[in-house]
């Protein structure tokens, strides 16, 4: 049985422009090893998808790049994680500055219980922008960039919780854009959304990839095939540690996988 994936007309990825890189990364939660020996380079201004079965460490991998694993007690990273060639694993790195450069969108839309405007202004305010006119400009620019402006421009002062799920997720993207990041990490951003809202987010991702480096974790292989330029396939070994099985241009990984396990997974034989 073979599955046909609708592949996007992926642009040629400039492999020499590596934005994010992991080298021999091992991630531990206490004594449990979540990732083993992961080495890969993520190209600039492109979409890289991370796929694999549940529990293979996709989210943990994503959270390496904004040090979100720090929030979990007992988390420990070995190896190198770099952004623009600069290591971000050191203890004394400014994680606040890092997270400003590397934004994140979560699985469940998590708008704050405030107005639409305050949601977008939240990040800039925390970074010391308090001029209301300036914040308005940032909010409009970010909301336009997130393809949400036309839908919310008349209800900026209303609660963000009143928006639909898809709008909430685009608001969360706008909230990230407002702090002018370089990288956007997306952790299954569409898993709580209906197909129409999902397509809107995917369109948005394609347009954002012009300016930003995007890494997306997804359960949905059609989605990975549709939006991504590069794809990484992660899998668990017997001790449940995630390993990188295959990494390459999306078109190649989905039509001509080199590894038998990748082929089995994308043709639906397991997972």
């Amino acid at each position: 049985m073979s599955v046909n994936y609708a592949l996007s007309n992926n642009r040629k990825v400039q492999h020499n422009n590596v934005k994010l890189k992991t080298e021999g990364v091992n991630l531990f939660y206490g004594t449990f090893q979540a990732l083993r020996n992961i080495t890969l380079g993520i190209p600039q201004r492109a979409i890289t998808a991370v796929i694999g079965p549940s529990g293979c460490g996709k989210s943990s991998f994503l959270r390496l790049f904004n040090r979100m694993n720090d929030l979990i007690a007992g988390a420990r990273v070995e190896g190198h994680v770099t952004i623009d060639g600069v290591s971000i694993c050191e203890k004394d790195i400014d994680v606040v500055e890092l997270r400003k450069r590397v934004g994140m969108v979560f699985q469940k839309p998590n708008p704050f219980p405030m107005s639409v405007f305050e949601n977008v202004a939240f990040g800039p305010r925390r970074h010391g922008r308090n001029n209301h006119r300036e914040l308005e400009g940032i909010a409009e620019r970010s909301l336009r960039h997130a393809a949400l402006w036309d839908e919310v421009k008349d209800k900026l002062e209303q609660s963000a919780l009143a928006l639909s799920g898809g709008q909430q997720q685009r608001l969360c993207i706008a909230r990230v854009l407002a702090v002018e990041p370089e990288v956007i990490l997306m952790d299954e951003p569409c898993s709580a959304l209906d197909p129409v809202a999902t397509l809107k987010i995917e369109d948005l991702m394609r347009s954002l990839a012009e300016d930003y480096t995007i890494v997306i974790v997804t359960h949905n292989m059609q989605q990975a095939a549709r939006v991504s330029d590069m794809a990484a396939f992660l899998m668990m070994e017997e001790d449940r540690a995630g390993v990188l099985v295959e990494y390459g241009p999306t078109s190649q990984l989905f039509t001509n996988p080199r590894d038998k396990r990748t082929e089995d997974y994308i043709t639906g034989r397991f997972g």
Partner: protein
Amino acid sequence: MATQTMLSRQFSQRTAFGLLILATAIVVVPVLFIIFYIIANGAGAISWEFLTQPPSQAGKAGGIFPAIVGTFYLILGALLFSLPIGVLAGIYLTEYARDNWLTRLINMAILNLAGVPSIVYGLFGLGVFVLALHFGMSLLAASLTLACQALAMTITTSREAILAVPREYREGSLAVGATKWQTIRHLVLPQAMPGIITGAVLAMSRAAGETAPILVVGAAFLVPGLPQSPFDQFMALPYHLYTAAAHVPGMPRTTIWGVALVLLVVVLSFNFLATIIRLRVRQRSFSS
């Protein structure tokens, strides 16, 4: 056979409902009865003079104005000390303290603190505030004593309110580069505020009714005039009620019930206030 099972199921369902309603009635009826009894017996004592005049003839005549004011001062003082410390400690314990044996010990100690008999707090206040710190028998010493007692509840409710703020909010805030303190200050605390304030006000309503702790640190049955400074002795409703009922021969029964009624209204109005604040803050945070 099938019908029989149906019948017995119906029967056990009715029995269960009956028991649940009975249990509820056992709880509610005495409360209503007590309230009704106090109103019926005490309403006759309530007058403008009773609420606004100082007592005369050893409390047998006149009013209880100084006791009402004293109770409010006491609560205000206790709130002033217990709310900031309680909230800050709650933040530290939930957000910053590492989860180790020491933290767990502290949390357990705080929970147990709520169960310490109130007279023990009174003796603690006597030893520390009245004697060691030389505050004397005073409003200040009594406020601090009640604050200590209220702390257990304020910290516990603050912790619960802070923990109830979803992790998604914190992650969303940290992910745009907010610091941990900014996340707490601008996202977690505003969300937790209704819960924190409710807890603090309820703790105050309990403190308003306490007799034992203030008995030994500065409450007096009769004080000429209102307290002029935090170092003055003071009158308070629960202590006034206790003395009037137990130690003044020939005290008119209506007056005793009248004091009880006023105390009840003060305490219940705190609970009512807590509900109002919670509703208003919740509305604001959702509509803003």
